[in-house]
């Protein structure tokens, strides 16, 4: 918060925007309100919170808390939300709309997702095992994360650079990925092209890797078409669970940390990797200089986003 105050003071509040990614926003509060409607079907007094029961609820709060006066928007595209905010923010800055954007990814546990994913039989009864042959579904998590994307010349001391992004649609099914990973390939290839990089330039990929039966195998099929064999790839959802709208942000931050520290996370709970994986998955934490890293986020409706980050200045 104090960092945001410094930024809005230096650049001017109108030159800072806000982009928040979330899939369920404050629906948990709405769910609770519905357990206590009055006889006419209206919300009772403690729940009469007009700024809460809508998709831009966290965004409204962030703008009020930070004093950001530039454009503010929520992106809600299921599990790609927290990644797409980076792509949109970079475009706003490139256009000259603003000089910096506070990007966020937020999702809380709520009954909509707990029972919703359960109804789709996508939830494991144990901690999820991405890419493991015994995997049988996701573990749902919650998270919030923020970053500030700023015009390069205004941030001389920044350690990381946002290099590019790729977004696409699967055009296949609302809750099952394209069987050949067509949309995933498009997103990864576009991200590389926009970053002026080849697949061999990527040191580490943080995969979507939810541990659903469908996603993991298909994702390796897509990955094999996009990066080189020297690229390390893992899913960190064994530690965090699938944080849905926040996943793109959480995993971007994990990738930024791997660039900073040279520690590449393995794939927790992947003890017996699926035999037919099309790309080797890193099981154990590994030390490796990471200059450029990529992260995938794929959401319902076949909505895909891939981000590429790098160490600043190389």
């Amino acid at each position, binding site marked *: 918060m104090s960092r945001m105050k410094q930024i809005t003071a230096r650049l001017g509040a*109108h030159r800072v925007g806000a982009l928040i990614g979330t*899939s369920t926003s404050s*629906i948990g509060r*709405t*769910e609770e*309100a*519905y357990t206590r*409607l009055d006889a*006419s*079907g*209206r*919300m009772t007094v403690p729940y*009469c919170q007009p*700024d*809460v*029961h*809508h*998709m*831009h609820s966290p*965004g*409204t709060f962030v703008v009020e808390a930070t004093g950001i*006066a*530039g*454009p*503010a*928007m*929520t*992106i*809600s*595209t*299921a599990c790609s939300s927290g990644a*797409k905010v980076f792509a*949109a923010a970079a*475009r*706003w800055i*490139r*256009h000259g*709309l603003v000089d910096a954007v506070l990007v966020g990814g937020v999702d809380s546990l709520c*009954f*909509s997702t707990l*029972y*919703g*994913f359960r*109804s*789709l*039989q996508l939830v494991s009864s144990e901690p999820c095992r991405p890419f493991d042959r015994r995997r049988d579904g996701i573990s749902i998590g919650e998270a919030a994360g923020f970053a500030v994307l700023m015009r390069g010349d205004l941030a001389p001391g920044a350690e990381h650079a946002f290099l590019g992004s790729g*977004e*696409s*649609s*699967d*055009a296949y*099914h*609302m*809750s099952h990925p394209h069987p050949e990973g067509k*949309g995933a390939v*498009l997103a990864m290839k576009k991200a590389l092209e926009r970053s002026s990089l080849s697949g061999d330039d990527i040191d580490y990929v943080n995969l979507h890797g939810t541990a659903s039966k469908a996603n993991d195998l298909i994702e390796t099929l897509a990955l094999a078409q996009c990066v080189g064999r020297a690229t390390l790839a893992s899913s960190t959802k064994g530690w965090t669970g699938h944080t849905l709208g926040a996943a793109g942000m959480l995993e971007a931050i994990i990738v930024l940390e791997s660039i900073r520290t040279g520690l590449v996370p393995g794939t927790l709970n992947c003890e017996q990797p699926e035999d037919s994986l099309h790309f080797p998955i890193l099981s154990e934490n590994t030390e490796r200089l990471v200059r450029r890293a990529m992260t995938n986020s794929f959401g*319902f*409706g*076949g*909505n895909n986003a891939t981000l590429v980050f790098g160490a600043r200045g190389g």
Partner: protein
Amino acid sequence: MAEFDITGVGVWSSHFPDWAAFCRGLNSGVWSYGADLDPDVIPARERRRAPASVKMAVEVMDQACRMAEMDPENVASVFASAMGDMKITDSMCRTLAVHPELVSPTQFHNSVHNAPLGYWSIAMGSHAPATAVAAHHFSASIAMLEAAVQCFEESAPVLLVVQEGDAPLALEGSCKSDHPLAVGLLFTPAGTTSKCMARVGFTVKPNEIAWPSLPAGLADSYSGNPSGKMLALLAVLAQHSSPETGSSPHGVLEFPLGQHTSLNLEIRSAEPGRTP
């Protein structure tokens, strides 16, 4: 100033099922009611599971693309709604309050904010990028800005759809919307096609302004609907399409983006004096 062309429009509400009906209504003050909504561009398998919100969005996106004679396959899309599908929110919350185990898987995957774009991409076989956004009362403005920035920065057409359903009683506190409305617009990079309804220059200004007024006769029905703000833009575009007026669209429209910022649109015809 950065610009884009508007090359296609689609609209649907219970007062007007398409652009022609909207323009007739503006001129005559007579509106049609109870229009059916069953866009057959959605394949039968998906259409069975598609909620009204999806049908509304797909209908206006299809109308806009047809008007522009634009193949949607490579067209990126931006969807905006302040509340998302309120019927689904209401239904799911009621189910969760009493029998959570009865939540339907179809209803759950239909509840994501980007569901209409998922169905659209499947119907059109389009792998183009899609984004779904919200900014409460400012949803229409921020969506127009986002679509304009995408169109300009990517030098590529963008299909914008802004819509809102009618609010169930429990959700009225956040959105007092009485009539559903969907507006679709195709933004195309300036000067790249001859099918141009209007050329629009856009900027963002650090000021606090009031909303533009809605056409008389529609204001009562749509002033509470966040997507109703689009009707001010449609009224300006309609100036051009009516043979009776013989005039070109022109004007400056300002839409609040928030408390402190506004979207400024300078609207003109692409070639002064020419009526395509």
